[in-house]
């Protein structure tokens, strides 16, 4: 008939609970942050899906794609960049493995290498931008190229900053350990996400 009652065992537990609760608040709850990040990345992914969808729609409706007179894209540099970014995902995973063995130094090294590889990717992208023979408003393909790669580049930048933030925090001894490594895992998941988006982007813009 009625829906709730109070369990004496639970009550006991709860009293114990509130006594400690004055110290920290949300830390005592189970950690939902990783799950939240994954849900957030679904939304992020949908922004890219929207942009990819628009790109494919332009491609399908225009008689010629890329529009006539668009200079050919140089493939060598972006390919190297792609390999670099994919490799960095594996490098980053080593950092996660290291911290799970409580190896802070190893973790820091692997993270530093990942951040460097991310930075190289960004430098490569800027170098490519400066050497392209078309600008943002040249034609529809050029606009789409800059907006899509630029938006991805923004995400890579955020990823690099996240890794640097984790490195900065790991200066404090014991900030990360085999039990406490949300920051590293979050940065890693984000980094893999950025990587997967790039693979789709590379296929769409350069290869298709």
């Amino acid at each position, binding site marked *: 008939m009625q829906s709730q009652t109070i369990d004496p065992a639970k009550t006991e537990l709860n009293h114990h609970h509130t006594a400690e*609760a004055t110290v920290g608040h949300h830390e005592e*709850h189970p950690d939902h942050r990783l799950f939240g990040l994954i849900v*957030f990345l679904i939304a992020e992914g*949908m922004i890219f899906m929207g942009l990819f969808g628009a790109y494919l729609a*332009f491609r399908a409706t225009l008689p010629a794609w890329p529009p006539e007179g668009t200079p050919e894209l140089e493939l060598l540099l972006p390919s190297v960049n792609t390999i670099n970014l994919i490799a960095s995902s594996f490098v980053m995973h080593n950092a996660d493995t290291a911290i799970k063995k409580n190896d802070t130094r190893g973790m820091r090294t692997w993270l530093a290498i990942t951040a460097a590889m991310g930075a190289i990717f960004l430098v490569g992208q800027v170098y490519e931008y400066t050497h392209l023979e078309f600008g943002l408003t040249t034609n*529809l393909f050029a606009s789409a190229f800059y*907006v899509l790669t630029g938006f991805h580049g923004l995400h890579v930048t955020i990823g690099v900053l996240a890794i640097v933030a984790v490195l900065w925090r790991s200066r404090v001894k014991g900030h990360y350990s085999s039990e406490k490594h949300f920051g590293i895992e979050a940065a890693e998941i984000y980094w893999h996400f950025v990587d997967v988006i790039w693979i789709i982007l590379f296929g769409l813009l350069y290869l298709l």
Partner: protein
Amino acid sequence: MTQAQLQETANIPAHGEEPPARKWQDYFGFNTDHKVIAIQYLVTTFIFYCIGGVLADLVRTELRTPEVDFVTPEVYNSLFTLHATIMIFLWIVPAGAGFANFLIPLMIGAKDMAFPRLNAVAFWMIPPAGLLLIASLVVGDAPDAGWTSYPPLSLVTGQVGEGIWIMSVLLLGTSSILGAINFLVTLLRMRIPGLGFNQLPLFCWAMFATSALTLVSTPVLAAGLILLAFDLLAGTTFFNPTGGGDPVVYQHMFWFYSHPAVYIMILPFFGAISEVIPVHSRKPIFGYKAIAYSSLAISFLGLIVWAHHMFTSGIPGWLRMFFMITTMIIAVPTGIKIFSWLATMWGGKIRLNTPMLFAMGFVGTFVIGGISGVMLAAVPFDIHVHDTYFVVAHLHYVLFGGSVLGIYAAIYHWFPKMTGRMLNEFWGKVHFALTIVGLNMAFLPMHKLGMMGMNRRVAQYDPKFTFLNEICTYGAYILAVSTFPFIINAIWSWLYGEKAGNNPWRALTLEWMTTSPPAIENFDKTPVLVTGPYDYGLEKAHEGVPLSDPNPILSAGPNSVLRAEPDPAVAANPEDRK
């Protein structure tokens, strides 16, 4: 534990981080308590509702006569653009998030949302976004390309106004995405032990479906608006046909969000109505699973029907067929809900108080809006009435007759829980009567106007439409008047209203099992579930319990919960009831 003792413990903050809101000033700051955030949401969005309503009455005043005599056509364009934008993005969508913030943690027995600080951040994006939109009126360059902002029109109207519009909508979209993440994680991870998805109150189901829909569709609008912003400000030509772009792509991206958005606007109130009707009919809900799963069906189907807004945009015939069929199929899960509510009321002991009146008004007017929706889903009919007042009538029946009446039903139902005081019944009924009369006067004649061929979004019209337009305008004035009894009632009752007690409606969902208003971490003790949320004892249902009935079994208070235990064997082990 007695009532007094419970109050005593409730006032001790359980943690040192954030004090609960005790004074009205506490509602103006950054606070991470979900109940404070919920009230911030509801009050803020209601203020925007009033602003949007004033704009609507200005629009209607212009349309009272066939000539352009009240405002200039340019101002008229800004008025209806801002009216729609404010009502959709600043009132109905965030109001749903407001109720979700208040109810989800209480209904699932959690102390707070999964990410309290993120929750506050999501709320605090709304006031600046709203002020930005309203500021555009003051700087004299308000957006005036309609709430859809279709390019190429939106690219040739005022640049500043359009930029402000994009910025504001992006902010509001971000806010609702962050809210949706919070609701999803909270619902999936923070339910008390023993509370499976199949014992979840239907409002939680509805918010689950709504949040999933928000999460998937809103980012696509963001992508579209980013491209539109580039067109507007950087000179690209994604949607500008003069540079080889395709405006129809914008329409696809826009409606991929904005069609699901109508379900984002209505599903939370489907959920709220599913709570109000069984409580005030004193009967178990009819078809719990059907209502729950139909929310999911609506949110899935909602994602694949967007192009029915584009039947006249030159999309291929086979695509029109596909979208016509999927659109019509949505009427099925919606009908399942309507019939389940009617079946719940059937034979129940209905208490005709204000929340129930609004709920019944919701069902009635929503059916009219739903039926005109099915009519519009048919391609030939849609082509005939496209961009006429028939569409305006349909969307207002759904959004005013549906969402807004749903919001009012929810406010009257949960006001006692939020504030600890009852709203005045007499003024509530006055409010209801004025709203229903005004709503039907304002929007019913529009069906006829649309069929006769009166265009929407134009300040001037053929004099033969004058009479019906006058009726619409006076209806809109009545709607404006109808909010006054509500506003005064809400403020007065909050201060001096009759004390509500913990469970004035004798409801069975978890939020009524704590104090009114709930203490900072909601529950004194982790509640343990014994029966489902709608198990109103079948034999008791027909007796109907008057409000003042001191019957200890059904009366409020945590003690009664213990006394009302149905069967000790079942109570001991919540797993048994599966």
